[in-house]
Structure formats: C-alpha cells, structure tokens
C-alpha cells in the first residue's frame, strides 16, 4: 500500500493562476497532449488512455436514452447553440475533445417552479470497447425547480463526456453519476455546475467499473447563498484506475461547499486518485467549505492517492478545512466478525458497506439512497467474494 497525502495550503495569493486549475478554453491548441510530468496528469496512466487523448470523431459508441417525467423539456443543442457552452469551458484536453467532438448535445430542462416527484434518468450504454463516444449533456434547472437527474453509465466504450449543469436561482438539483462500466471502458471528462443565488446543488459520483476513469467535478457560483455538496464513492478492483478531481471555486460571498468522497480498493494495481481543490477568492467572504476523503485499502498491492488543496485569499470566512485518511482493513475487525460465524468475504462486505453507507445517507432522498445501497451491495457481492444464498426466515 502506498499513500500520499500532500495538503497544500496557500494563503493570500493575489493571483489565481495555478497549475491546479489551468485557464479553461474551448481551443484544443490550449490543451496540448500531456507528457505526464504536469501536476494535473502525474497520477494518470497516460499510455492506457492514449486513444482518448486523440482527436477522434464520435462513432456513436454510446446509445443515450433519456427518461424524463412530464413537463421536462428534452432536446438537442448544436455546437455553439446556447445554453450549451455557457457553463462549462473545458479545463483539460479530454474535456476539450469531448466538446469539440460532439456534434449534438443532449439537453434537459426542468422548468421554473417544477418539483419533480420522479428522477430524470439518462442511460448511456456502449457495446464496443474500441469505439469512441464524444458526449455532451446540458442540464438546466430553472428558478425554484426541484429535480434529480441520474446518469447511468454501463457497458464498453471509449468515452469522453462533459455534463454542463446550470442551477438557476433558488433551484435544487441533485445529479447522480453512476459509473458502472465494464472492465474495458475508458472514461474521461468533466461535470461542471454553476450554482446561482440561493440554489442548492448536490452531486453524487459513484464509480465502480471501467479500466481507466478520470473525471473532473467542478463547481462555481453565480451570486451569494449557493450551496454545493459533492459526494462520491468508488471501488477499485485489481488493475483499475479511478481518478476523481474536484474543483470548487468560491467566487461569490456567502456560499457553501462540502466535499466528501470515500473509496475502497482491493487487488494488485488497483489505483485511486482523489484531488480536491478549493479556491476561496478575495470576494468570497463569509463562505464555508469542508472537504474530506477517506480510503479503505482491503488488500496489499493497491494504491490510494489523496491530495486536498486549499487556496485561501480571504480570511473573512466562516470556515475552511480539509481532511484525508487512508487506512487498511483491520485484521482485528476481520477476526472479530468471523469469530461470530460470519465468513471472511461477508465480513469485508459488511465493513465496506458500512464505510459507504455513511456517505449514501447524506444524500437525504430515501428512494435514491435505497437504490444506491442496492447498487453498492450488488457491486460488492460481485467483487468481494461471492455472496452466499441465505434463506429468508418467515
């Protein structure tokens, strides 16, 4: 097990130019092919994603199905057609390629004041691990609407995907992004939200599958009173690389952010990366932010990198903090649980499930919590040993 924890706290920097958040741009020329020496690329296995870094047209490798309740507008947006491109400006080469390579974007609009009883489901499924998909999805939650969007990724493909999220004043939007890919999928991209005045944005990232996954989750604000909660859980199996990079830009006063990611790893060369960047700009007085990442390493040979970064340009804030812990599955816990008759695989599943459930319960939407718990249980049953059939008592 190898662990890096490099908290960087830079105070009173007047410029916000930083390697941690390069200047976003639509122009591919601004995002050269990385060498691997760049800070933002140093954890990523570039050779394995070489094909993703190439400019390749969309081969339609992902079929996208949108299931939305009545009243929700579902459509398409051409390149350059607003609101496409109004929230997300690509921060790295993968995001730039996703945008430039996607002829049409999917568009989902929740009208003002609508409160959706059912989630909007966006299913993305691929059947060809060698075929490219460039996908852009634009989600707009109009003022005072309340909705949940579940993006569900399954199957095999080479995926570049951007999700552009506009959370308008007073809206409450929950976006769940479930990466349940087959083991040969490559997935890169960016999900960026702009959180307007008094709006609440919740993002839940769940990554299980895939060969290499590298996702940016970015938030910035438009006006005071915005809240952003970014939750994540991930499980890396042997040989898998799962990388989550957050960037919360507190560019408005009286805003709130909370980042809480948890990951479990098992198997040789299972590798997870979590990088949490929070920038508190000079204008962002009276804000509150906390970010935390916990990793649970179940076996030898797995590696968890965890890097929280906090850049603070004003001291006039309610609070800012971060924490990062990486621990091993404890042999004494295993002994204790097995001494009660529980088999070792089941014991591991119990502990990992317990570790994840704490995050899932933060979502606060009962239906969604149950759905996610079922997903996690299914994943753990497949990966951590094999679930035993137990007869239900009457």
């Amino acid at each position, binding site marked *: 097990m190898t662990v890096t924890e490099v908290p960087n706290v830079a105070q009173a920097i007047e410029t916000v130019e930083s390697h941690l958040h390069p200047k976003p741009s639509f122009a591919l020329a601004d995002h050269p092919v990385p060498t691997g020496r760049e800070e933002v690329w140093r954890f990523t296995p570039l050779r394995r994603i070489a094909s993703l870094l190439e400019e390749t047209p969309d081969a339609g490798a992902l079929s996208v199905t949108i299931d939305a309740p009545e009243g929700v507008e579902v459509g398409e947006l051409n390149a350059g057609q607003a609101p496409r491109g109004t929230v997300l400006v690509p921060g790295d080469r993968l995001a730039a390629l996703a945008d430039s390579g996607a002829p049409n974007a999917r568009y989902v609009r929740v009208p003002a004041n609508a409160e959706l009883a059912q989630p909007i489901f966006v299913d993305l499924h691929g059947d060809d691990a060698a075929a490219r998909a460039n996908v852009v999805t634009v989600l707009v939650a109009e003022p005072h609407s309340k909705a949940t969007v579940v993006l569900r990724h399954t199957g095999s493909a080479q995926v570049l995907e951007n999700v552009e999220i506009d959370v308008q004043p007073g809206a409450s939007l929950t976006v769940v992004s479930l990466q349940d890919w087959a083991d040969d999928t490559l997935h890169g991209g960016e999900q960026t939200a702009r959180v307007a005045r008094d709006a609440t944005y919740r993002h839940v990232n769940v990554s299980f599958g895939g060969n290499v996954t590298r996702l940016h989750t970015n938030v910035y604000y438009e006006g005071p009173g915005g809240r952003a909660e970014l939750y994540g859980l991930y499980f890396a199996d042997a040989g898998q690389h799962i990388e989550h990079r957050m960037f919360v830009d507190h560019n408005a006063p009286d805003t709130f952010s909370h980042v809480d990611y948890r990951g479990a790893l098992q198997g040789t060369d299972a590798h997870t990366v979590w990088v949490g960047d929070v920038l508190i700009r000079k204008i962002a007085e009276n804000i509150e932010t906390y970010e935390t990442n916990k990793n649970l390493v179940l076996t030898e040979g797995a590696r968890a990198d965890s890097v929280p970064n906090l850049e603070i340009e004003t001291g006039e804030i309610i609070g800012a903090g971060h924490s990062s812990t990486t621990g091993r599955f*404890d*042999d*004494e*816990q295993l*002994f*204790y*649980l*097995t*001494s*009660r*008759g*529980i*088999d*070792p695989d*089941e*014991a591991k599943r*119990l*502990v990992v*499930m*317990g*570790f*994840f*459930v*704490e995050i899932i319960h933060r979502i606060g939407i009962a239906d969604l919590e149950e759905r996610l718990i079922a997903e996690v249980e299914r994943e753990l049953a497949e990966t951590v040993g094999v679930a035993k059939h*137990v*007869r*239900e*008592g*009457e």
Partner: protein
Amino acid sequence: MSLVISGLHVDVETEDGPKEILKGVDLTINPGEVHAIMGPNGSGKSTLAYSLAGHPKYHITSGEVTLDGTAINDLTVDERARAGLFLAMQYPVEVPGVSTANFLRTAKTAIDGEAPKVRTWVKEVNAAMQELGLDESFTSRSLNEGFSGGEKKRAEIVQLQLLNPKYAILDETDSGLDIDALRVVADGVNRYTAPGDRGVLLITHYTRILNYIKPDFVHVYVDGRVVAAGGPELADKLEETGYDSYVAAARANA
C-alpha cells in the same frame, strides 16, 4: 459431547520469531459445566482463549481440540463459530459503519444457516439489550464504536444470549466492570447457562465474578499450563493466598 482440549501447545508470533505460550493444556468441558480458569497476568490465559477461537496470531504446534467430537484445529475462525464456539473478548473490536443491529442479524444468520424470523428477532434483540442494561439506541450505533469499556462487555453478553453457542469462552469479561455492571453481566451468563446444556470456560484474574457465576471446576493456570485443579473451594483458597505459591512452584519446576 464436550469441548476437549488435549496436550495443547501454542506459539505466538513475536518480532523475535515464534514463542511458546501454551505448554500442554488438558481440559474437558462437558455441557452444563462452568470451568473457571484463574491465573496471574501473563500466564497465557488469553492465549488459550484466542487459540481456541482461531486467531491467526496463534499457532497450535501440537495437541488437539475437539468440539462434540469434531477436531477444530484446522477449521477457520468462522467455521469454529458455526460449530458452536463463542469467545467473549476482553477487548471487543470497534467496527465503524456496521450497525450493531445489522451485525447481530448477520451473525445470527451465519450461525443458524438461515435468517432469523423478522417478527420475533427484533423483539429478541431488544429484550437482550434491555436485560444487559443497554438502551435501544445501541442497535443503530456502529458496532462497539464509542461504547465505554463496560458497554462493550455488556454487548458481548448480548451476543452470547442471542447467538446461544454450545460452548462459550469468556475472556476476562469481568475486568474493568463496577459491581453493578458485574451483576448485570453475570446474570446474562447465568441466563445463558440456565437450560443446563451449555459449556462455559470462564477466564479471570479475580475471584470476584465467581460470587455471581458459580463454577463447577476451578483450574489454576500458570506459565502456560494448569498447575492445580479443584472445585469452587479452590477459588476461596486463591482469594486468601493469591497466586504467589503457584508461581514460585512453577518457577522451581521450570
């Protein structure tokens, strides 16, 4: 039908290599019997408990343990538990994120081979918790996490009552308990043995708990072996004289 320990030698892993702790233990526990094992600190009492349960740090180098006729030396920890063995630990382990209720149900399911009946199980759990003086909120808390020392011991006995194993090893369950908690815990053990067909190996440093749990046999245990055996009167004698004479005799023989 009994728990039979014969000629048991056990090594523990240390930084300097394996070290022999148990040097030939012979003990037979029949259903319905309570055996107290008493000894000074460092005599290997806990090693006996852990090696019976199958802790990976301890290795049986020779001898045999059979449970109702089945050799358990080569069984895994969970297989031993399912065969009917239970160890109430001196230092129960905290398991964050796993609720006590979920743990109890999972353990009961594993032991019985089928899930307990939903209707009666919750009542059973709550009743056992109440008997041990733990309020219902403990079932929704993470297993042992943030429990006080006494609460952990009570929770061990809750498990003993609910899992109802054929043989229970209680490893210094009395240590760190005040007199009220000791009574509550002892009552729990006595409820467990009341039907008369369960075997108990009660490991303790002090005679105090024997005022509440009546042993049928008392074994004095020094330097990895039993050096004296008798009835309850042996505990009374220990109360007066302590372990010094036994320790001195063991040294002289070594």
